[in-house]
C-alpha cells in the first residue's frame, strides 16, 4: 500500500473540509484531544455525532410532519442539533441550523422546510467527506495522522 499517497489524500480531504468551510476551529480541538490513550478519538467522536444527529434530524422530520405549526418545539430540536454541530465544528451545518431557527422565529414554515432540506444535504455531504477521510487515515496506518502534531 502506498501509505504516503494515502496519507496525502487524507490530508487533502482534511484541508478541503477546512478551506471550504465544512469544518471549523472546533475540529482542531478534537484533533488536539486525540492522544495515546484515545488514538481514534476524533473518529469516534465524529461517528457519534453522525449517529446522534440522525436521531435529532428524525425528530425534526417528525415534528415537521405532525405538528408543523409548533415552532417552539422545532426550535428546541434545532437548538439541540445546533449544539451537536458545534461539538465537531460542523460549520456549514451550524449555519443552516441558525437559518432554520430564524425561520422558526418568523413562523415561516416553508422557510423551515427548505432550510431543513438544505441541512440534510449538508449533513450528508459532510458525512461522506469525513467518512472518506477517516477511511484514508485508517488505511494509512496508526502512525500517520493528518492532524496537527499532538501534544
Amino acid at each position, binding site marked *: 500500500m502506498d501509505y504516503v499517497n494515502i496519507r496525502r489524500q487524507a490530508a487533502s480531504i482534511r484541508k478541503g473540509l477546512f478551506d471550504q468551510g465544512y469544518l471549523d476551529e472546533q475540529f482542531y480541538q478534537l484533533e488536539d484531544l486525540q492522544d495515546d490513550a484515545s488514538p481514534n*478519538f476524533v473518529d469516534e467522536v465524529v461517528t457519534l455525532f453522525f449517529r446522534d444527529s440522525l436521531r435529532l434530524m428524525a425528530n425534526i422530520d417528525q415534528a415537521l410532519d405532525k405538528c408543523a405549526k409548533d415552532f417552539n418545539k422545532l426550535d428546541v430540536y434545532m437548538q439541540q442539533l445546533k*449544539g451537536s454541530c458545534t461539538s465537531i*465544528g460542523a460549520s456549514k451545518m451550524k449555519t443552516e441550523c441558525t437559518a432554520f431557527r430564524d425561520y422558526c422565529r418568523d413562523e415561516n414554515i416553508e422557510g423551515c422546510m427548505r432550510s431543513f432540506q438544505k441541512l440534510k444535504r449538508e449533513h450528508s455531504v459532510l458525512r461522506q467527506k469525513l467518512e472518506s477521510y477517516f477511511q484514508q487515515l485508517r488505511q494509512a496506518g496508526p502512525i500517520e495522522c493528518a492532524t496537527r502534531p499532538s501534544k
Partner: protein
Amino acid sequence: MERQWVPSRTEAFPMGLRVLVVDDDPTWLKILEKMLRKCSYEVTTCGLARVALETLRERKNKFDIVVSDVNMPDMDGFKLLEHIGLEMDLPVIMMSIDGETSRVMKGVQHGACDYLLKPVRMKELRNIWQHVYRKKMHEVKEIEGQEFTCADLHLIREAGFEERGLLTREDKKRKEEYNDQDGSDQSAAKKARVVWSVDLHQTFVSAVNQIGFDKVGPKKILDLMNVPGLTRENVASHLQKYRLYLSRLQKQNEDSNLGNNRWADFNPKEPPAKPDLETSPQVEQNTTSKPSPGFGFIAPESETQPIKPTSHFEEDNKVKRKTSSMPPLGMLLSFTGTIPSAEIKPSEPLTPSKHPNWTGGLPLVQSMQCPKHDHKRCDLLCDYSCLPKPDLYTSAPPVISINVQNETGDLLDVKPALMDCIKAISPLTCTVDGSTSGFDRLPSIKGSFFEQSNCHAEPGRITGSDLVPLPEDLNLDSSLQEIGCFENVDLMNSIDYFQTEVESSSNWCDGSELFDYPLIDECLFA
C-alpha cells in the same frame, strides 16, 4: 469512590478534582469527558439531569463540582442548578450554545458559578477548579467571620468541611491561619448582605406555600412577595437554603428518635408534601417532649400536645440550659448547640395556643425580628421562643430544632429559617442578651441563636450580628415567624453542622453530626 481531596497528598490541587458532567448530547459528553481527563480531573458523565441528581444525592461528597448543559430534555438546566445548590451546595458551571445575556444572567441568578459557551475549549475547563477553591475559601471565611473561638471554628470546619471531604487537618490549620488574617474583612463584607428578617422570611414562606412547594421558583416567590428592593437573587439564594434546610430537617426527623413522627411528613420516607403541623414535626428532643429550642425541630412533646410556643418560650427563657439565658432569639434556634437534646430541655411542649401560628407543633424560635404574626405557618422560623435556650456550644453546634409547626404543618417553611438560623448561629453563639427589643433585626441569626447556647457566656462572640434579642418575654406568638437573620450568608456550613444535631432526637445537633441529608426532601424537589 470516596476520596477526600487532600492537597497535601502527592496530587497537587487541582488534580483529581472530581467533576460530574451532565449533558444530553452524547458527542459533547464524550468531548467534555476527554477534555476534563486531560486536565487530570476525575470525571463522571451523565446524560440525564435526573440521573445526575440521583447520583449526586447518592454520592454526596464525592464530587467537587458539576458542569452541566442548560438545555436538556428531561429537566431544565436551571432547575438542576437550583437543586444542586440547595441540596448539595456544590459549585455548578453551566454550558450552552446560547450566549444571550439574558440566559447567562439567568444562570448566574440561579447560582451558577460560571457560564461557558459552546463550543467549550479545554482551557476554559482547566480553570474550573477555581470555583471549588473559591467556595471553600468563602465557606471558611464565613465561619471565620463569626469570631468563633478557635475551638469552635475547628469544630465547625470539621463539621462542614470534613464532611464534604474538602478539608484535611492541614487544611484546617491553614484555614485558621487564613482566618487570622482575614477575619476582620469578613464582617464588613457580610454586612452588605440581605438580612432576612422574620417578617421577610415569613413573607417568603407564605409565598412559597402559596405557590406550592413543588412549583416554587425564585421568580414566582419574588413576585408574590412583592418586596421592593428584594432581588431575585436574594430570593433564589434564600430558597436554596430553605430547601436544604427542609431536606435536612426531614432527614433529621427520619433519623432522630423523634420518631413520633410529628415529622412524619417530613420524613424522607414519606414524601412530606406538607408537613402537617398536626402531625407535628417534632422537635426532637430526646427528652420527651421538649420542644426543641431553636431552630430545630421543636418537637412537641411526644404526646401530641400542641405546642405552646410562647409558653415554652417563656419557659425556656427561664430555663437555663447549659448555656444561657435564652436569648431572645434563642428560642429560635435552640441552638443549644451542643447536644441539644441533652441540653435543651424545653420546658414543656409548646402549646400552640399562645402561638397562634402553631397548630400543634412547637414553634420555632425565631430569633429574627418579630415576625409578623400573620403567618399561618409556624415555621421554624417563627417562634423560636419555644426553643430552649440553646446551649450552643457546649459541645456541639447548636441544634436548631425548628419545629416547624406551621399551621399548614409545613415544615418546609421552617427550613430556610432554620438554615439561616443555623447559619447565623454558626458556632458563634451570639449572646442574645435579652435585648428584648424583639426581633427587630435579626442580624444574621448568628447573633441570636447562638446566644442561646453557650453564647451567653460569651457575649463578645457575637460577631457582627446584632443579636436579635430574643426577648425573654418574647412573645412568640406569631411574631417569631422567622428567624430573622437570613443573611444570605453561607450559613450552610454552620447549618450543616447544626443539622446533624437536629437529627438527634432533640433536634439539637450534637454538634458532632453534620447535617448531611442525603435524602432529598421530596417535597422540595418533587
